[in-house]
């Protein structure tokens, strides 16, 4: 796996790095929502949205699952706030974070894609899971001109190749 490699075109810069610690938080009911919000400092986001900051971020991934990442993540405190109302499972070991920065990030995601990343409403704070080049990805819009792509590490070289190709062609 080429780590930290960057591909630069006029429109987009593509970087690649391991995702680091990421945890899946699954809730069985709403009992832990309030204590978790209090602990995190923000409400767990609804479908299609992220919340928090780069230091501590929650990404709504599934109807009852959020991905939590960021250096400020306090696992013990979250486990305590969670109680018996859900489960916290580390999942980040097999994730790669592909960064797309520059005005061309939206177009780069449309090649071999299915999702409308060119929709202006898909802006910072938005997230979506879809397929690109037959690979499952999670898109996280981090800024007006930047997007993060979480992808299973085994598929990362294939996806990286596809994104490089599409960035050059865009």
């Amino acid at each position, binding site marked *: 796996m080429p780590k930290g490699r960057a591909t630069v075109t006029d429109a987009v810069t593509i970087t690649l790095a391991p995702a680091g610690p990421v945890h899946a938080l699954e809730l069985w009911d709403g009992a832990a929502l309030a204590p978790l919000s209090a602990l995190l400092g923000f409400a767990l986001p609804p*479908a299609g949205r992220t919340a928090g900051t780069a230091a501590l971020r929650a990404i709504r991934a599934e109807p009852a699952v959020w991905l939590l990442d960021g250096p400020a993540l306090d696992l013990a405190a979250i486990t305590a706030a969670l109680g018996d109302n859900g489960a916290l499972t580390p999942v980040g070991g097999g994730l790669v974070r592909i960064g797309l920065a520059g005005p061309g990030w939206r177009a780069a995601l449309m090649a071999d894609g*299915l999702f409308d990343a060119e929709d202006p409403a898909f802006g910072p704070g938005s997230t979506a899971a879809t*397929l690109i080049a037959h690979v499952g990805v999670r898109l996280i819009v981090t800024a007006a001109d930047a997007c993060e792509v979480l992808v299973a590490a085994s598929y990362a070289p294939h996806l990286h190749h596809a994104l490089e190709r599409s960035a050059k062609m865009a």
Partner: protein
Amino acid sequence: MLLIACPHCGPRAQEEFSYERTTDSVVTTEAAPDAAMTALFTRENPRGVAEEIWRHTYGCRGWMVFRRDRISHAISDIRPLGPEPLA
């Protein structure tokens, strides 16, 4: 290719979804053997509207059920399946 309005994610391409089965062929582990085999092997196959279970496997991984007209592909009455929705 269909456009399926996922109850969680909104309209998405069919490639993100997987078809599971029609609702009348759901078999629980409590079902009696005869009923279970009937549901699996001798079910309706209407030329028209069927109630189908799909999963947004490559999206939010959520489950849903909707009615699909197998002639026109018109989709209606889509609703989520699964545990009680959270905020």
